């Protein structure tokens, strides 16, 4: 069961949705709870683990994050924090959505948290119309329906246009 961390040099192969294979050190892969559970259950490292929902570009980013966090000792929290904030800087929304989905699927809590935070920061303090424009959210309410929703949640809209 604990064999997965006994040998740091062990590697496993991950395959992205578009068919690229990545050779990953086990201690890096263990940043993902999904992979950890797979390794704990049986999965021999000779198998190729398919990740049908994650494309190569996203997987490369995810593994970059895992590598940094797996290698840094806990004493370097400050360094990790600045790595995290640099990591998502200037990333376009499409890539960010791919990343948040991948982090969710692979159960990498730290990455999910920072990606979700970045999306939340984009929504924060913006009027509805702007949020809709940024994310291309189509308003499918009729004016009557929207008014009803606003009325139901009046506590949230108080003092807000």
């Amino acid at each position, binding site marked *: 069961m604990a064999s997965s961390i006994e040998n740091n040099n062990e590697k496993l192969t991950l395959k992205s949705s*578009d068919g690229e*294979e990545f050779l990953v050190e086990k201690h890096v892969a263990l940043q993902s709870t999904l992979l950890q559970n797979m390794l704990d259950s049986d999965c021999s490292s000779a198998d190729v683990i398919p990740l049908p929902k994650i494309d190569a570009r996203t997987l490369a980013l995810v593994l970059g994050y895992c590598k940094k966090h797996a290698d840094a000792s806990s004493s370097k929290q400050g360094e990790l924090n600045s790595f995290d904030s640099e990591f998502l800087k200037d990333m376009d929304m499409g890539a960010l959505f791919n990343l948040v989905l991948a982090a969710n699927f692979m159960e990498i809590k730290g990455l999910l948290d920072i990606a979700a935070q970045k*999306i*939340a920061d984009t929504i924060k303090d913006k009027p*509805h119309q702007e949020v809709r424009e940024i994310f291309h*959210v189509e308003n499918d309410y009729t004016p009557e329906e929207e008014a009803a929703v606003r009325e139901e949640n009046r506590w*949230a809209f*108080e003092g807000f246009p």
Partner: protein
Amino acid sequence: MFFRIITRRHRHSGKQALRSSVYPKHQMDKHLEDRISQLPDGILSHILSLLEIREAGRSSALSHRWRDLWKFTTNLNFDSSKTMWRLIVREKDSKTVERERSKYVALVNQVLKFHLRPSLDEFRVRFCLGSSTSCDIDEWMNFVMSKGVKKLEIDLRPLSFETPYTPSQECCLSFKSPSNLSSIKCLTSLSLMYLNLNGELIEYFISNCPNLEQLLLEGLEQIVNLNISGPSLQLKHLEILECRFLESVEFCAPKLVTFKYFGKPIRFMGSLPLLAELDIMHDDDDDDDAICPLVPFSSYLSQIETLKLTMWLLEDYEEIPRIPELTNLKNLILDVTNLFCSRFPSFTYLVEAAPSLHKLTFKLFSPIHSTAILSSTLAPRPHECLKDVEIFGFCDQKLVMYLLQNAINLEKIICNPYRERGESEEKEKARKCACQLREKLPSGFKLIIL
């Protein structure tokens, strides 16, 4: 490179990409696609949990997809500190207070009425309600008890001359009902501030929370003797602040690592085998005995590795109380930024009692402090382990010169001339003074001026 692409298999056609749910169906439409609304509910409520609750609620008007998502946020954070402090410090008009209170209560009531998630990561209430709306608060308590909450924080400090909130008898009984016991067991962090809860109820929480790692008790005036123990207590971090009538604490907390205590000296008993960090603020308001703030902690001092003392002006003892040697102390932080009077063991006395001290941090407020720190009835002795010193509010060279003479293996001093209320002119003077130090230092010595 951390990975290696072993094979670069045949590039996949659009057909494969279509099957993958993370890719837009048509590249052409990519820039117009509403990808955020396609994220799974779990991720969206996670994102909304990171927003202030009213902002999360407003997302309901974006589209049908968003209508109910806010009802599943993992956190309910009703921390209204800013308004609270404004009311406590400045507001004298009772009508304004009433209006702000009803606004706050209405907000919490509305959210709790609609919120649907069965368990919560965090529930936080923080407003100066006192006992003004006890019935509503009882309902909030019932809400919390009906959910499994991991992190619970309740701060209901009353305005001056008001009484604190006391849960109704039914409410207290319901805490102990078997159905609520399973919710209590979810708690990993519990903060109770300015409530009328008796010691028995708090001990009930402590002994029934097998996952509790953090506990903060502040301004609880009904507790007198407290027993912190439980059959499988995991408690790692404990803070007891300003519980005025507390007289003794008895521990059986085998995992406790950090302990913060602000208040008058009281009795502490029992074993804390893992305790490594003590943070003490000495409240000496009406105390006639010249009791050293460390004396109540005597039985733990030899094991402490980090000690933070927040004190109000230094004053030497005519007769220094005996404390055991701080054998394991590596890190000492002296915070004397507040300007009131109290008694304090002098710095030289503490350093002599800590032979393994490695790092020393001073937080000073004015030049008086650096003089006071040095006045001592003991003759200084050389200190061998001290390597690292940091001075916040640096203002003169005396302290540094003293350290250079006595800490014979000192490697580094960081001088930060910043003081919270200092004038910029003073800061500039302090910075110049720090720069002049360079000439007096041995070569190779690290002096960092911030």
